[in-house]
């Protein structure tokens, strides 16, 4: 029983990081119907931004370092949209997807060139002391950093939910998702709404990267594997849906962690992708996705 609780806790930490990445996939897909294959690499760059900041400003606490890494990565996301994607918005879908793949490869090699191919870790800025009362209650090892990752991620997701559902900016984002050609006729600058969407998605991915770099490790190619996982999570949950991305992430992380713990680590990816296929056979639009609507 203790080990199950322990594994679920590990899954929650991993799921939180998946969710921070998956939200970006989902949001960008929501507004411009693009699977942004560079998004996993944006997450990776966010992690490295955190690493470089941590090495350069050793005095900087996490609460300052993380927002700074998020800001820098948000600017990167906006720049990518502006330079690479915007002029292709009316082009064939395939051009945009291939461009996204290209941007991803570019980022991987840029980082590899800049900081080298080695696996690095962000010197942890989180207290790794055990949480005594929770340990006593659950009978398993619980450290503050793990709780911090889970709760800060959940707080960011709640904030995002509030922005999307409770503010005019969010109304504009949902309107773009609904019918982006009509949005400008409301006098709203469509490019600005899309840029803000990229900024938010990239910032969340960077938060995931900074956490991941402390809890696990960083390397220039990590965005491929983790990006795919988060993408799967977004699709399982129903791409375009915020709640779906979060649900899919925790579900996928749970399946992965439990597979490694009780079956075999070799089966981890097989089961994750198998789950994707199975769930999509039953729910083609994902667990919380809307059925594809026909638009003329």
């Amino acid at each position, binding site marked *: 029983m203790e080990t199950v609780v322990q594994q679920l806790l590990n899954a929650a930490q991993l799921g939180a990081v998946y969710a921070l990445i998956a939200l970006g996939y989902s949001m960008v897909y929501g507004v411009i119907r693009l699977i942004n294959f560079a998004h996993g690499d944006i997450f990776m760059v966010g992690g490295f931004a955190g690493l470089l900041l941590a090495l350069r400003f050793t005095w900087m606490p996490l609460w300052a370092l993380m927002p700074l890494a998020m800001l820098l990565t948000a600017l990167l996301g906006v720049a990518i949209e502006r330079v690479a994607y915007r002029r292709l918005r009316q082009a064939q879908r395939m051009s945009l997807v291939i461009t996204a793949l290209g941007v991803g490869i570019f980022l991987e090699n840029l980082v590899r060139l800049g900081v080298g191919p080695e696996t690095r870790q962000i010197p942890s800025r989180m207290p790794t002391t055990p949480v005594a009362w929770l340990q006593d209650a659950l009978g398993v090892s619980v450290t503050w950093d793990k709780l911090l990752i889970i709760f800060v991620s959940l707080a960011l997701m709640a904030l995002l939910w509030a922005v999307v559902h409770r503010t*005019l*900016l969010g*109304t*504009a984002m949902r*309107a773009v998702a609904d*019918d982006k050609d009509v949005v*400008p*006729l409301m006098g*709203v600058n469509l490019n600005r709404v899309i840029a803000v969407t990229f900024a938010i998605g990239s910032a969340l991915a960077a938060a995931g990267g900074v956490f991941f770099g402390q809890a696990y490790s960083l390397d220039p190619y990590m965005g491929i594997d983790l990006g795919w996982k988060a993408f799967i999570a977004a699709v399982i949950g129903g791409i375009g849906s915020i709640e779906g991305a979060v649900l899919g992430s925790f579900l996928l992380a749970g399946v992965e962690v439990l597979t490694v713990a009780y079956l075999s680590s070799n089966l981890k990816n097989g089961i994750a992708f198998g789950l994707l296929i199975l769930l999509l056979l039953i729910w083609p639009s994902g667990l919380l996705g809307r059925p594809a609507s026909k638009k*003329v």
Partner: protein
Amino acid sequence: MEAALKVQGLAKAFGGLTAVSGFDLELGPRDIQGIIGPNGAGKTTVFNLITGIYRPDRGRVSLGNTETTRFGPDAVARAGIARTFQNIRLFAQMSVLDNIRMAFHPGAGYGLWWATFRTARFREEEARILARSLEHLERFGLAGLRDEAAGGLPYGEQRRLEIARALATGPRVLLLDEPAAGMNPREVEELIQLIRKVHQDFPLAILLIEHQMPVVLQLCREIQVLDFGETIARGAPGEVVRDPRVVEAYLGEEEARA
């Protein structure tokens, strides 16, 4: 009297195909004018050119003293031109209220910073827009439907919401693209009343495209007839519909349809 909307020599070709050639229009501040013509005559293209969705090859569009020819669609909307579509285009999955809030949006500061940190000024702005939106819905008899998904409303109500949403942007010129399309005679009658009321209550000019003659005959002071992208007749609706060239353009089409 200065024109609210002035269009001179507007032209657009797609590939080798001329969609509109030399379209002129002068719409007074309180005017109602119409454009009629067979399908494919270029009527909707004219609307797309005026609203900045297409860039014209030649010609000028001015709204009052502002030339909007090169404006993007969002800038045209902010300058004061609003429109509806032949096939209604609401934000179908959003609520009726959110459709209207969206149109009141541009005046609001919607910076990410303010949205995220929900400053006092920001909350005030949102509360103000909510209040205005509700008042606006009330005015169009849609307040009871505020939380319904716009795409789920009956056809007539969707049309009313689309017009209400266009008006929420605060236009000086309202473009209606076949507002009576797909309506039965009773609904057409209601629509005519609605457009009359809109014209009375809001300080604006209306330009409409329509196939249903009752709408054109009862509402428009002047109409022009487009055929193959060219204006073939212009004048008071009662006279224009008897013009032999117009009859030919229309009957030709009716025969082709039959």
